[in-house]
């Protein structure tokens, strides 16, 4: 669109004035129109961003500099006190370790699995549309239903998984009590919900790979597995990097699944009795709304924000290194 308009902005001849009109005003209006209109067209995004992105960000920063309580109604200037406390706050770093642990446990199998599912779906097969639609079914399932099913599966006393383990003869696992097992259980919930989503992205990217590459490889006698590793995966590299970044941002904000998993605990935001699966966002919520430390909750939110920026930058550098953005 811009290329069509460029001649009019000065280099080309001015648009011919229709007869009967004052040419000066028309031309000026047209010039204003050309200068201003693009900004008007993109303004909705910025208006929405300022309202729902920038303002909450700055407001959160303002709150984080206060000793602020919603229930008690206190609101006192605290300066950087909350940030100083955050650096020495063992519970915050514990939650950070939990978050990264669950993120790694969830993301790696999720993306690998998604890749293989997409590869399978990319072949000609019967009912492929049905299977493709099935991929998004977990995403549209109501979270309440997810919670009920998964808590019943991972229940210590009457859970399905422990029942199966009992059949095989191994002992019960107390999924909620153990730090490692609770991470595994939550990672499985995350994978269940998001693997299909990533698989669809991969599938879309796979269909953009030229068919003749595969035909040439087949003629040369390359097996399907070899085609997958030497054609599909390299061609998908930018897409894989995109999903890694999206998964990083989502993983650092992990909230719904661990909260649903903690449905049997006294305070669901605690992530278990010794905070074994409390993530950063849960810690933020717990401070802001359960423990009446709204100011400190805002501080945690900002710490998370900075952390996401750092992680995204690391990813960006990684992407440049591997040549994914060429």
């Amino acid at each position, binding site marked *: 669109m811009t290329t069509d308009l460029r001649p009019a902005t000065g280099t080309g001849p001015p648009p011919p004035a229709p007869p009967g009109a004052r040419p000066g005003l028309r031309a000026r209006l047209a010039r204003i129109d050309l200068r201003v209109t693009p900004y008007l067209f993109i303004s909705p995004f910025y208006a929405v961003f300022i309202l729902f992105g920038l303002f909450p960000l700055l407001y959160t920063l303002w709150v984080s500099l206060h000793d602020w309580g919603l229930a008690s109604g206190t609101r006192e200037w605290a300066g950087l006190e909350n940030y100083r406390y955050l650096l020495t706050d063992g519970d915050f770093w514990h939650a950070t370790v939990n978050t990264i642990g669950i993120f790694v446990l969830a993301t790696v199998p999720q993306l690998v699995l998604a890749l293989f599912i997409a590869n399978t779906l990319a072949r000609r097969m019967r009912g492929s549309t049905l299977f493709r639609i099935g991929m998004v079914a977990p995403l549209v399932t109501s979270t309440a239903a997810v919670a009920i099913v998964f*808590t019943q599966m991972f229940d210590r006393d009457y859970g399905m998984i422990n029942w199966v383990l009992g059949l095989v003869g191994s002992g019960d696992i107390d999924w909620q009590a153990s730090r490692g097992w609770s991470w595994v259980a939550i990672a499985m919930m995350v994978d269940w919900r998001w693997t299909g989503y990533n698989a669809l992205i991969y599938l879309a990217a796979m269909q953009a790979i030229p068919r003749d590459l595969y035909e040439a490889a087949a003629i040369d006698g390359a097996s399907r597995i070899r085609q997958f590793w030497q054609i599909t995966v390299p061609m998908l590299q930018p897409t894989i990097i995109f999903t890694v970044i999206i998964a990083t941002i989502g993983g650092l*904000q992990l909230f719904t699944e661990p909260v649903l998993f903690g449905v*049997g605990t006294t305070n669901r935001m605690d992530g278990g009795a010794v905070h074994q699966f409390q993530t950063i966002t849960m810690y933020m919520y717990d401070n802001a*709304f359960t423990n009446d430390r709204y100011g400190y909750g805002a501080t945690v939110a900002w710490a998370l924000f900075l952390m996401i920026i750092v992680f995204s930058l690391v990813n960006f550098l990684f992407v440049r290194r591997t040549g994914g953005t060429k």
Partner: protein
Amino acid sequence: MRTAAAIVMAGVMAAASACGGGDDGEGGSGPIELTVDVFGEFGYDQLYKQYEASHPNIKIRQRKVSTLDDFKPRLQQWIATNSGAGDVVALEEGLLPTYMQQRGKFVNLFDHGGRELQNNYLPWKWQMGLSPDGSQLVGLGTDIGPLGMCYRKDLFEKAGLPTERDEVGKLWPTWDAFLQTGQKFQGKVPGTKWLDGPTAILRATVLQNAGNGPGYSYFDKSNNLVFDSNPSVKTAFDTALKFSQAKMTADMSIFTPPWQTALKRDTFATLPCPSWMLGGIEEFSGGYGKGKWDVATVPGGGGYWGGSWLAVPKQSKHPKEAAELAKFLSSPQGQVGAFKDKNTFPSSPQAAKDPAVADSKNAYFSDAPTGKIFGDMAAQVKPVYLGPKNEEVRLAAENVLIAVGQGKIKPEEAWSKAVEEVKKAAR
């Protein structure tokens, strides 16, 4: 992205509900809709119908969440943002002190004829609903939770224990005796734990010990944290700890989904039972538990747990009508009605003397004379002062006991860990 979607959803829902509230009309023109926010079982359904029948211009909508821990953050957001709260909100005993600090956000019920109601309530219940200087009536008392001990008659029979409630009560004059009985029980019925979890027992014993002792628990009356220096707290904690250490609890917390499932099986045999708990047991164990449960006296003498107040947030569009409704629901006759429905025991002496309460028997609980059991207990109740951060401290202490039961904290380290966690929670 997920969070953004959630925020948008929340916004849409808020907008939708705001529109719903907007077309209520002014004053006498058209029906007025009053929203009542409660948690758990208040037993008001029949009372709403009654009130609507006698007040044709009023329509009542109840919003109920099952647990207090779900209710608390919602209420906090409503009050902090001055929007969203119902016209009448229930304030549990742990929440009341928190909102006493922000009493400016609630209607002074003295302005709506609250002053004449004083004699309708037990003196301490009335007193706790007042601001410290006595100038504002923030909440009108609803129920109180005098303690009993619920037990599974059928399982007791299996273990060769007496099943008759008077004799069962004699089994446990003290908590130590209760523990020994439990050990006997678990020896005979190995698949079943003695108690549901450490949380109920901690709450019951803290209030019991504090009531018989200094009259405050985690915080003294000037709101200083005295968790580690108040002997009543230590005694209660040690009592609860013994049960966790001996693996005599199923490590569950009341009203959570695993606890609800457990009620439909033989997971545990006893449960410290404030009167309102009877409604919960009946609701969650349903047909399975009918005739299997009974109520005896609680070890260690008196005690209570829970109880609420009704308050009217200033943000209500119809404060006058809301205050009238709150007065009705908490009136002696309202309290009798709630008791009939869900066993919430009245804080009104008149209601407690009403034959509908005093002579009542609970069919679900093997015809236990609940009116008498809880009435006797209510007469002995000594109130306990709770600080504004009581709930946070309670949750932190309970978590430590649960972790002991799960083997994540050593019993001998439990107390020092609890002190550490509690200090963080009260920060």
